């Protein structure tokens, strides 16, 4: 039995999600120990349990120790069954975390699948469904398969009530390299508001427009219908190879301009780094390349998340992944 140390590196839910995904991909069981050891609330939380349930559902797997606070979990996957799945998670974690868990095995499945998740779709602690749709999945599709997220209803924390559906058509995956960023062909910004005054969105966009010299055509206010209040701003930078997205969340008692500055700072860091793959994308993208069996990309200094994900991938898959600093602050990750 493969044993994963859940307290390694970043030591959070990422180790668990990657392990679940790759166990389902390989059909091999694993035991994860010391889950989130040393955290204030150690062990499995609700948001982790929904991922375990989803992984078990699509792979006909069995999970022992899937309880709140459990420090050890043993997961034995069965055969991955493509098809229609629906999970209701409430506001425990985020829909995108569940979708990220089931995406790798379903990309390798024998047929198309459709996975709906109801609950939170936009949570500051996870990638948004818009990020999956606008940044991550287009890259996945370049590997060969066809995957798409439809956001039927937004679900903001704390009210939830959203619904996102991931449609996957598997195909052979052909790796490619993302070594140069190329020039940014377009920068645009989107501000979402739900049950809040639209002026918040306008103020955020005005701040982004000033920072990047955007025209009105490149900024969009979206007033969306959702059970609760919510405000999300993101900046999209489109290049030849990749569309990177930088997201920030409106918060009570934080001015709209400040919310905008957070996204602007992240975008500027990425632009200054002159690498195609930003830090958030890097740790998810390496998993896709590992599934494809090759490829490389250039990114900034590796985050703890990236390193942790690499070590979990190496545990499950027979791939070699190298990580090297090619220039100061610019690194190349190569999968072979």
């Amino acid at each position, binding site marked *: 039995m493969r044993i994963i140390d859940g307290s390694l590196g970043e030591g959070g839910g990422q180790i668990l999600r990657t392990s679940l995904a790759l166990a389902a991909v390989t059909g091999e069981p694993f035991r994860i120990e010391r889950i989130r050891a040393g955290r204030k609330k150690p062990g499995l939380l609700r948001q982790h349990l929904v991922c375990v349930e989803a992984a078990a559902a699509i792979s006909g797997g069995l999970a022992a120790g899937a309880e709140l606070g459990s420090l050890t979990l043993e997961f034995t996957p069965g055969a991955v069954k493509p098809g229609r799945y629906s999970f209701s*998670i409430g506001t425990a974690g985020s829909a995108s975390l569940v979708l990220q868990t089931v995406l790798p095995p379903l990309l390798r499945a024998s047929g198309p699948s459709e996975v709906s998740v109801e609950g939170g779709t936009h949570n500051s602690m996870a990638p948004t469904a818009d990020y999956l749709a606008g940044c991550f999945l287009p890259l996945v599709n370049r590997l060969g398969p066809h995957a798409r997220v439809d956001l039927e209803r937004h679900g903001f924390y704390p009210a939830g009530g959203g619904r996102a559906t991931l449609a996957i058509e598997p195909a052979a995956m052909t790796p490619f390299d993302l070594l140069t960023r190329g020039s940014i062909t377009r920068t645009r910004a989107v501000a979402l508001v739900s049950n809040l005054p639209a002026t918040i969105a306008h103020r955020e966009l005005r701040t982004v427009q000033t920072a990047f010299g955007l025209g009105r055509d490149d900024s969009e206010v979206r007033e969306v219908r959702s*059970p609760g209040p919510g405000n999300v701003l993101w900046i999209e930078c489109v290049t030849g190879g990749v569309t990177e997205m930088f997201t920030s969340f409106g918060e009570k008692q934080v001015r709209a301009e400040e919310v905008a500055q957070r996204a602007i700072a992240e975008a500027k860091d990425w632009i200054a780094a002159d690498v195609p793959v930003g830090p958030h994308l890097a740790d998810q993208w390496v998993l896709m390349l590992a599934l494809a069996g090759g490829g490389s990309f250039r990114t900034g200094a590796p985050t703890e998340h990236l390193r942790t994900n690499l070590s979990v991938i190496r545990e499950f898959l027979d791939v070699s992944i190298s990580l090297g600093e090619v220039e100061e602050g610019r690194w190349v990750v190569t999968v072979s």
Partner: protein
Amino acid sequence: MIGIFGTVLDAAEGPRRWERWRPSLSLCQHDDLIVSRFELLHDARSQRRVEALEKDIRSVSPQTTVVGHQIDFADAWGFENVFETLHKFATSYPFDPEREDYLVHITTGTHVAQICLFLLTESRHFPARLLQTSPPRRGQTDRAGQYDIIDLDLSRYDRIAARFDKERADATSILKSGIATRNAAFNHLIENIEKVVGVSRAPVLLMGPTGAGKSQLAARIFSLLKSRHQVKGEFVELNCATLRGDSAMSTLFGHVKGSFTGAMKDRAGHLKTADGGVLFLDEIGELGLDEQAMLLRALETGRFFPLGADHEVESEFQLIAGTNRDLSELVAQGRFREDLLARIDLWAFKLPSLRERREDIEPNLDYELSEFARRTGRRAAFSREAREAFLAFAQSPEAVWARNFRDLSGAITRMCIEADGGRVTVAGVEAERRRLVSAWRQPGRSAKSNEEILNSVLSTEAIAGLDLFDRLQLAGVVEVAKRSRSLSDAGRALFASSRTRRSSTNDADRLRKYLARFGLGWDDLRAR
């Protein structure tokens, strides 16, 4: 989860309600808590708002099933009504603690409801733990806030349990005058007394031979009650054997001026003096029948008539009675009232004799030494050899300790006073040993006659068949054997002088052979 719908905090409408903290909703928003079922108690008027809350709970926590219970308090601030209503809910609810874990949410509802929920949980009508919620702190992005689970089983809290243990240890230490006694039976007895006097105001009866420490224990019980603020009054001690005639009544219950010859002025009497405190009546078996009747009435009603008084006097006191006699035997002889005995022997404790607590002699020796120093301002100490010699004697069957701690205390005090330069020597111990043994040998000291001793081990026919010579010797041997811990112990005591002159020193075997001549074994002496 069982909780009351909070008509103020839980009720909110419009999208902005999500910006507010709602306690019942927050329970279903925690990342480390899954509420499978939420039994939500509400009144008829809240029906619609409860349905709205249910919908919100479903949105944030699809794993939670909300079950509404319409309960209407006639008066949500009336204790009796709220308690009754919640009690009815608790007793009719099909709890299954083997399979389910219950939490009672006490943050919502009126304060009266919260108190009732607490009481019903504490009394295990709700076999649950309490749960308290609080709103998110300023700047916290997590909207669920905090929750705390309070388990009313206080033994689960290490620090609280440690504090209780210490309190109990302190209390038993007070009762033992700080002496680290080792006798398990005695220590158990003290723990029981500590438990009883902690919760009951009923009379306590201390039984035991003269000098076993009844009087001292009574005083220590008073100190304990005083330290816990359970008594306000005085400790009043009286030996009933000293009461005679008219003055007996007067001493106990008081009198008014002129009630009898010599009653020059009012006298309060011991019962009144002990009001709010502790009255210790030692040798209660010696109390006259008239006084017994008065005492019984005073215990039952808290009132009594002083001698010659027209009006009753009130006094609330904790009675501790002491006796070295078998009170039920006195009842049989008509010398003690049965109803009074029934009243005072609810909590009866038998103090063991010093002979039965040989392992406590050493800690008591140290206690007496420090007491001596405290009383006289002079320190006295035993040389190592003297201490060993004294303890060896004190724990041997030769030491009868006829008057128990009184003898021990007296012996130590004498040795200390006679010690040159405050040093008790082997010679001093030897002199005291001879003094004690001779005092215990005096006629009349022996509690039982030779006849009684032999009757306890042999049949009348068997005794009749013995010469007086053998009867006298056997009675002495049996008496020593009976207070010895083992056959070897008894042998050592009986053959102490000759053993130094013999090459073989199997005293036990010698004793066994002697007893066998009368058809007696070691067990025969112990069993009866």
